[in-house]
């Protein structure tokens, strides 16, 4: 898979996360779903779950589209003669 294709997958993940944040159709459940662990209402526990999902999403993004710089490129980073301009 090319980087471009992998990056498109990343954009799709971002879009899904944005839709899940703006999930207004679920707001009716706020008063219907029982309290999680006896103290977390749906409006609250939804974002606890969202945080865990965010961690998973970031893990996928990192594995998919966050390459470390190749070693020879890293060596160039220490080349201070190119600094700033």
């Amino acid at each position, binding site marked *: 898979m090319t*980087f471009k294709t992998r*990056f498109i997958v990343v954009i799709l993940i*971002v879009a899904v*996360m*944005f839709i899940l*944040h*703006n999930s*207004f159709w679920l*707001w*009716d459940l*706020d*008063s219907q779903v029982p*309290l999680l*662990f*006896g*103290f*977390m*209402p*749906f*409006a*609250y526990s*939804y*974002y*606890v779950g*969202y*945080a865990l*999902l*965010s*961690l998973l*999403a*970031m*893990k996928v*993004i*990192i594995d998919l*589209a*966050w*390459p*470390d*710089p*190749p070693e020879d*490129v*890293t060596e*160039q*980073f220490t*080349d*201070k003669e*190119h*600094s*700033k*301009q």
Partner: protein
Amino acid sequence: MINAIGISILLVYMIILIAIGVYGAKVSLKTSEDYFLASRNLGSIAVFMALFASNITAFTIIGHAGFSYEIGYGAYGYVIGWSIFITPFTYYLVGYRSWLLGKRYGYATQPQVFGGIFNSKLISLLFLILLLYYTLPYLVVSIIGGSLALSTVTEGLVPYWLSALIIIGVSLIYTLPAGMRGTVWTDIFQGTLFLVVAIFLLSAVARALGGFSEITHQIVLDNPAMLERGVSPELAPINWFSYAFINSIAVIVFPQIYTRILAARSSINLKRVSLYYPLALAVIFGVSTLMGVWGSVAIPGLVGKEADNIVPLLIHQFLSPFWMVVGLVIVLAIVKSSIDSQLLAVAHLLTDDLFPRLKKITSQQAVFWGRIMLLVFAAIAYYVALIQPAAILSIAGFAFSGFSVMLPVMIGSLYWSRANKYGATAALVFPAIMLHLWYLRILPQWTTFGFMPVFPSFVLAIITFVVVSFLTPAPPPDQSKKTFGLFDRVFK
């Protein structure tokens, strides 16, 4: 109120900060790169805590709890929901590519990175002006918020003017001698402190109110509206949607955050930070939300700004004086860890991006002038925080939106090789003007189509950047190659 144990805790806290400052100065090299960027050698924990502690302000524990007191559990998702994912994602989207350029070409600030991409002194100057313009009022408001919080927690024992002086003074104790290294080391200490203590504080409040389940059931019985997002006009879907464009995406544009990303030692450090950041944000705002909502039942009847006092009031009414001191230390830690980084970022921008335009200075002279700038801006910020001019407060009211509107140019510059300096210039200036016209109510409200002004301004920035870049000549190939040749080698 504050007994011998309390004074001892405060003293130990101060001594640790001073020791960090002294030791940081001892191990620091006398170069600009070391003073402002800790020699780009920050490890995972250092970058994580530096970003987290700089990102968390008095609003988190004071303002957000007050907002939750009024709005209910929905405040959690509204204020921080989108940030939980998108803020660490921007560390990847913008942060990593900027870090690559910084390592390769020695860039240390946004004016250098984006001025360097377009080989344009104008772009560099525009970034400098806009970042200072939005950061300075934000800094003053942080000091005002922190000082009010400190004054409230001590029940007026430490007056507002003295609170501001303590916050700025203590911040300078370690920032002045040790620069970035001093702020980062104290961030590790203070960030850990307020993350851990906030959880203990929440447990203590819960116990005092009868337990987690008991207080929640009381809310269900007495004030069930706190559970429902749909009943609050403030959380109307159009506001909920618009708010996603204010605080969450602005974070990577803050100069104090951006610079800390450039200071990371390796790509692996940034990955770890981005991976675990969602949990840290969720925990600290989760604690603050619960305290606010619980407070609405435990101490009902607070209105408007009074609600912002809910955390100190809960501590005062339900916990022992020991917790009052602990609360005081947390407030100090939270407030200072953001103010010190803002002060250093402002001094850095002026020393590294403005001074060289006027006079050639050596790396050692830059450190000297950086310290002078720190002192000068600390004094100015203190004075402005005392007189609180309306104009400054007005700009601070939409500073986050101003930062957000700069993001399209930052993303476009790092991802689109056809982008040019004309597009970037227009996309920095035009949306910033429109944002002012909307926030200052010079344009009628209907022109935003019901959205908060940040959303149409953000869209305008994208359109302006793309259209103007297409209508004007493409950047010279060797200029594009400098940036995108590097990226092509990494992102394969």
